[in-house]
């Protein structure tokens, strides 16, 4: 019996591989297992390898595991690609007849069993149901019963016409029986300890962020389709009409952010969601929003760049652009949620911060956070508090018909804003430098005061979790990361601790304004510091160095991975161990 294992289904895109994974993940969630699900896919619709990986555990899991225990392979290509990742004693179920599949050389201690899943589906009259046969096979391997899966099929196929529910249940059962007869009891070793059947929730970061935005009062989304952010628009378009809201599928990302800024200026909580190429197109309007002090929220689900890069692959290489992008000295807030669950809370915070500081707020997701699927124990909706910031009250307005001082110099730098429709609030909002009423001016004194007003707005930024820290007060090793690498770093810390090395893990959640004091305090308490991130130019490390004390700057070492895949814990642990052992201490840069 196992309390944790990794199951993978692989095949060609467009064959329903995702559906197989989705159904199994959903069933496992209902049985009370903790799930981390991750899709590997290509930038095409039909054809090309795809796989869906589910880590199943009895405790919360935040990332992928290094080894695969069960692989359902619908083609030889899946075996060729994934056999090397199999755990000793792992099992590959191949779709086909005996003797057809081949293990690549060096596959090690792996058992290969053929189950003719497609043939069974054909017998049932619908070849696409091979996926459901595969789910049945998986149920047998994991020690589940078809009845454990059936409620998911009821929910998924009910109302889709015909006898879809019954047909899928039959395919499920046939797969289950075929696996039982092919394997007998010999696969019992892969059976899961029973789940606790507690009610938990399975969601992607894109869904969590969209949900957070909706709960925060977002009522307008304007976006242009892009991998891996489109799911945010898809979720919102199902929900917003029930709240009177609207999704605009814009003609491009410039239009998307412009529409959002227009709506934000007029008082509606609005956002756009995009990825690197789209975010690049938004840069000018991002600066404009900062200059006219219009609240807006941009979710950037990073993918591998530069340029079109690898659209379906994970990376964290937009940090510089999010923190520093757009011309001029631009105030902005960048929040990077640390988990899929945190995508919800970060989205809520983003709208409050945008209103409170009248500024663009970027929520930095990455592909693994956006599309990864994770068990969420619960969401604390009492934490959803809506703060619209300083919207002008009647007393603030200018009733004598003169210009309203929309950009009034205030101590905090934030000025009460009037919304179109408010009498006494007329003003000009312009991206040109302007005076307190919004009128255009290049007066030198005004310029300096206005710049300072905009840039000092965040001086009092608080009640934002800027860094999530786990570990001892004065760790020997400090691991620093951001975004989806939380899981790998967390497990790396556990392993280093298990080796007797006192280890801390700091996950930076607020990238701008940068929490320099907090990060410096952590740096000063650690002996060795490693910044691990999914990019080549060590962008987070560079940001830390920009703010770190001189001595600490030199102590930073970097661990980089930019091959499009997530960190595995060992990829953190190994370079750390190598580098902190006496031989390795000679200022060796890792990665």
């Amino acid at each position, binding site marked *: 019996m196992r309390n944790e294992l990794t199951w993978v289904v692989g095949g060609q895109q467009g064959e329903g591989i995702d559906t197989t994974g989705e159904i199994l993940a959903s069933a496992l969630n209902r049985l009370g297992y903790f799930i981390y699900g991750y899709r590997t896919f290509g930038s095409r619709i039909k054809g090309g390898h795809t796989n869906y990986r589910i880590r199943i555990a009895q405790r919360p899991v935040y990332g992928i595991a290094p080894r695969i225990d069960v692989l359902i392979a619908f083609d030889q290509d899946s075996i060729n690609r994934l056999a090397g990742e199999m755990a000793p004693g792992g099992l590959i179920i191949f779709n086909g007849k005996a003797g057809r599949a081949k293990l690549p050389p060096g596959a090690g201690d792996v058992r290969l069993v053929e189950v003719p899943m497609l043939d069974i589906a054909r017998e049932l009259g619908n070849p696409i149901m091979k996926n459901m046969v595969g789910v049945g096979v998986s149920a047998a391997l994991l020690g589940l019963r078809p009845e454990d899966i059936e409620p998911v099929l009821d929910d998924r196929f009910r109302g889709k016409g015909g006898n879809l529910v019954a047909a899928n249940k039959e395919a499920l059962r046939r797969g289950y029986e075929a696996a039982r007869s092919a394997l007998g009891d010999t696969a019992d070793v892969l059976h899961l300890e029973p789940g606790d059947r507690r009610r938990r929730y399975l969601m992607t970061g894109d869904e969590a962020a969209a949900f957070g935005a909706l709960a925060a009062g977002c009522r307008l989304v304007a976006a242009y389709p892009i991998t891996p952010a489109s799911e945010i628009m898809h979720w919102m378009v199902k929900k917003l*009409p029930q709240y009177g809201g609207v999704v605009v599928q814009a003609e491009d990302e410039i239009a998307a952010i412009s529409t959002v*800024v*227009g*709506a934000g200026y007029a*008082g509606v909580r609005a956002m756009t969601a995009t990825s690197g190429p789209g975010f690049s197109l938004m840069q000018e309007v991002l600066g404009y929003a900062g200059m006219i002090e219009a609240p807006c929220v941009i979710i950037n689900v990073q993918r591998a760049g530069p340029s079109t890069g690898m659209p379906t692959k994970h990376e964290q290489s937009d940090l510089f652009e999010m923190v520093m992008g757009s011309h001029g000295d631009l105030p902005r807030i960048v929040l990077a949620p640390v988990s899929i669950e945190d995508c919800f809370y970060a989205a809520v915070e983003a709208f409050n911060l945008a209103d409170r500081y009248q500024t663009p707020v970027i929520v930095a997701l990455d592909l693994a956070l956006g599309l990864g699927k994770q068990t969420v124990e619960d969401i604390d909706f009492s934490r959803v508090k809506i703060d619209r910031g300083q919207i002008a009250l009647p007393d603030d307005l200018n009733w004598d018909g003169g210009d309203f001082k929309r950009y009034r110099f205030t101590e905090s730098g934030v000025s009460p804003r009037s*919304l179109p*429709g408010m009498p006494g609030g007329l003003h*000009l*909002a312009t991206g040109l430098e302007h005076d307190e009423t919004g009128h255009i001016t290049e007066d030198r004194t005004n310029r300096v005061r206005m710049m300072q007003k905009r840039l000092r707005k965040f001086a009092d930024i608080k009640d934002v979790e800027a860094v999530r820290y786990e570990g001892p007060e004065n760790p020997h090793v400090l691991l620093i990361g951001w975004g989806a690498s939380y899981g790998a770093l967390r497990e790396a810390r556990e392993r280093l601790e298990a080796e007797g090395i006192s280890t801390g893990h700091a996950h930076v959640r607020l990238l701008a304004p940068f929490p320099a004091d907090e990060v410096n305090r952590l740096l000063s308490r650690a002996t060795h510091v490693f910044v691990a991130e999914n990019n080549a130019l060590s962008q987070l490390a560079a940001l830390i160095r920009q703010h770190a004390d001189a001595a600490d700057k030199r102590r930073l070492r970097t661990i980089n991975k930019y091959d499009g895949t997530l960190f595995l814990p060992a990829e953190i642990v190994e370079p750390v161990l190598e580098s902190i052992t006496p031989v390795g201490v000679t200022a060796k840069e890792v990665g």
Partner: protein
Amino acid sequence: MATVTRTAKDYRTSAAAWWCPGCGDFGVLRALQEAAAKLNLAPENVVLVAGIGCSGKIGDYFRSYSIHTVHGRTMPVATGIKLANRNLTVIAAGGDGDGYGIGLNHFIHAVRRNIDITYIVMDNHIYGLTKGQFSPTSQQGFKTTSSPAGTADRPVKPLQLALSAGVTYLAQAFSAYPDHMAEIIAEAIQHKGFSLVNCISPCVTYNKVNTYDFYKEHLVNLDEDPDYDPRNYDLAVETVRKYDELVIGRIYVNDTQPSYQDLLPGYSKEPLVNAKLDYEPEHWQQILQEFA
């Protein structure tokens, strides 16, 4: 409550216009102020969305809520404002470079969506503020600072583009006739759906070809033609082609198309800015169950 009657003066700001003496944009500003007065619009319920360029300065001179966008993006900004508060009168204004050059993409999409905004293009066939380069509407062969040997580019035909994109209100007016322009702008504002008023607004400094005299000589006023029917799409297409777009007056009017706001499923009938945002945790708990 006493009825307020407004005049053009009510739409003037304290800022002094810095357009060159004789600039066509003065006529457009005056016409817009007259149109607003004619409709007795409360300035706080009007948002003027201005582009970048000489013409974009109009936002500083017209008294209303005024938002001066980045170059070329008046259409999506105006769309966001209108969707945020459908009770507002949203008027976009900008030049031919702003609307038919850098912003052409957005222009076509705003037209085809039929969002209920009015777009005033101050078309002078030249880039003025950057000192006299040819614009997307400049005629082929036009000699400018960026085309000393004459431009190779053929001009954009905004009226034909708008017609092909499904515009529901299309008119052209001339700065030298601001009363006529005011009448048209007022009508365009009242139109439910997208309205384009292309305003011929000569640049007296950089454009020595498309001058007031040139237009006075060539423009045909369709409003004075008893046989012209602006509800006839085919006639509109034929007419703008026949006169190479040198027409003024109502070119095409279609009141039968629903506007974008009316086609959006679930979109609030009340201004979205007033939508309820706060829901009890129990409400969100129900949505959370969809993930179980």
